């Protein structure tokens, strides 16, 4: 499913679905304006198309018009690219026959991917562009570009407008690694080491019989070192700076915590005097901050997750095999190994599916270009780390001898493969790498994420 279809698939009865449909309509107007300007060879086509990109993905059926407009202006390579995108997205579309014919004239070998093989006397590519094998690789990269565009538009679409941290986390899953890090830092440095650690001394204080050492400990933790309000403020600013202008003064939980911090800071002189009222207020503020800490812990547990299970793999394979170009690829075997242990990763499911689809599609095309046996395997591996964490790796192996190394993975140029997928994986705190193949496979592309644990007991 491409980016446009993914947006369209969001339940239209939900608030997110209604927003998505509205944005798609708004973007469509901009895209059509851009295409019309391009057809008329007028100014402003690029700006109009860019407006559309900033709002939502484009209906892939517009690629037919874009291709024809480019061809009319002599931009044959660009036209072939757009025709390819159309056929990849809507192979049975109303204009598919005509688009295929146009692509046949521009690049007969590439057109053969989408239909009957071109005759030897077919016209050569006008601009002497890259070979069809590289273009096949480019197909995978184009889907990667769509993925990146989707992610970029989602980021702008769900930009914060003073929402709570929980709502931001719900709407922008690509921020979860950053949110997890910030929450972890706040909880560890401030809420655990300063606030939480003062708990036992506070109990003694409330009992009315604190030792001098306990009082000093309490004073040091709460009022010593960096001033408590300043320390709190620096964390709030780190959240707001890192998470795209988030305004935590509009977050109820953070406002309550802020008030508790200010109350504690104001109580220092009265605590020193062992004022009973001040001690009671301190205990109340302390309790509020402990509750805030628990709330943050709960929120961290609920960060977006995807189950890596047989259903996920089946969905990926079904979607890839349903693509026309993939269905034409000659493959001897596509093996999907059963998932031995279901695990969760902190990735939005639709993005995980898109990432693995890209990797799998590349592997299928690569294997199909090679000599038999043409095999691809998709499997999931869990690995225990020395830290007690676990890594979930989705491994796509293929029998193609074509080279694929880390530099190619990182390469962001559209015609060079998985660079955009790599960027998407990294945004979620994951990694993607190429490793030597095993059991007859030449190589494997491995996408890895740390396993997300939950609070359920171990069996």
């Amino acid at each position: 499913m491409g980016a446009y279809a993914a947006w369209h698939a969001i339940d239209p009865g939900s608030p997110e679905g209604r927003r998505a449909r509205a944005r798609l309509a708004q973007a469509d107007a901009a895209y059509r304006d851009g295409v019309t300007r391009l057809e008329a060879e007028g100014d402003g086509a690029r700006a109009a198309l860019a407006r559309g990109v900033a709002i939502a993905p484009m209906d892939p059926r517009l690629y037919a018009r874009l291709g024809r407009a480019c061809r009319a202006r002599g931009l044959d390579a660009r036209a072939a690219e757009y025709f390819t995108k159309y056929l990849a997205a809507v192979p049975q579309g109303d204009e598919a026959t005509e688009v295929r014919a146009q692509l046949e004239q521009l690049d007969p070998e590439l057109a053969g991917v989408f239909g009957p093989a071109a005759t030897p006397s077919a016209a050569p590519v006008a601009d002497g562009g890259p070979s069809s094998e590289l273009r096949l690789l480019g197909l995978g990269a184009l889907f990667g570009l769509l993925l990146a565009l989707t992610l970029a538009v989602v980021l702008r679409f769900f930009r914060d407008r003073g929402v709570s941290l929980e709502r931001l986390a719900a709407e922008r899953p690509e921020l979860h690694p950053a949110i997890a890090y910030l929450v972890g830092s706040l909880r560890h440095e401030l809420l655990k080491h300063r606030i939480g650690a003062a708990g036992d001394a506070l109990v003694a204080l409330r009992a009315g019989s604190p030792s001098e050492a306990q009082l000093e400990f309490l004073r040091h933790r709460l009022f010593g070192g960096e001033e408590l309000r300043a320390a709190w403020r620096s964390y709030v600013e780190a959240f707001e700076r890192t998470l795209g202008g988030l305004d935590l003064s509009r977050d109820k939980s953070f406002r309550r915590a802020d008030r508790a911090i200010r109350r504690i800071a104001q109580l220092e002189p009265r605590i020193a005097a062992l004022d009973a009222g001040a001690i009671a207020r301190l205990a109340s503020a302390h309790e509020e901050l402990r509750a805030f800490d628990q709330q943050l812990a709960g929120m961290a547990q609920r960060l977006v997750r995807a189950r890596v299970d047989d259903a996920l793999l089946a969905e990926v394979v079904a979607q890839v095999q349903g693509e026309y170009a993939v269905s034409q690829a000659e493959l001897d075997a596509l093996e999907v190994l059963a998932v031995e242990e279901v695990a969760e990763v902190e990735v939005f499911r639709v993005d995980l599916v898109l990432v693995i689809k890209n990797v799998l599609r590349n592997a299928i095309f690569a294997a199909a270009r090679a000599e038999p046996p043409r095999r691809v395997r998709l499997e999931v591996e869990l690995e225990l780390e020395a830290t007690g964490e676990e890594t979930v790796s989705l491994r796509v192996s293929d029998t193609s001898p074509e080279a694929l190394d880390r530099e190619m993975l990182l390469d962001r140029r559209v015609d060079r493969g998985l660079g955009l997928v790599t960027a998407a994986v990294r945004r979620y705190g994951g990694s993607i790498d190429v490793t030597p193949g095993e059991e007859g496979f030449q190589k494997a592309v491995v996408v890895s994420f740390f396993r997300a644990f939950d609070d359920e007991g171990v069996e």
Partner: protein
Amino acid sequence: MRRLMVIEDGHEYEEFARLFLADDFEILAAHSAAEALALLEAQIVDVFLLDLRFDRALEDALVGDVEATARRRFGGDRSRALRHVMEQQGALLLGALREAGHVEPAVFVHDFPPRRLSNLCRLYGDVRAVPGFDAAALREALA
């Protein structure tokens, strides 16, 4: 009296231990794996109290191969790998202690998910955890 070694990158655990656990333990403190191992050559310790995050530690004092971690788990991104090694330093440090033959119980003040704690036990034997600074809970865990 039993001997407790606190290993952390600051002094918060040591301060807490000296104030609330000193009746039950003689307290030793170290701030890196190297320092802990050096102390252990001359002292017998009954239990370790470990911080997990060593955000303030210098890189050359850390246990763990940052370069290899970057290659294996972070796509070559060294800064992410370094941050990870710092955030999980307590677990890696425990691995270094076990490798050196020190099998005494280890207690973390950290709210590990059960599966993670189980993994640490699988890797390093007697590992316990309390979710926060609570003297009574710590005394029980350290018993």
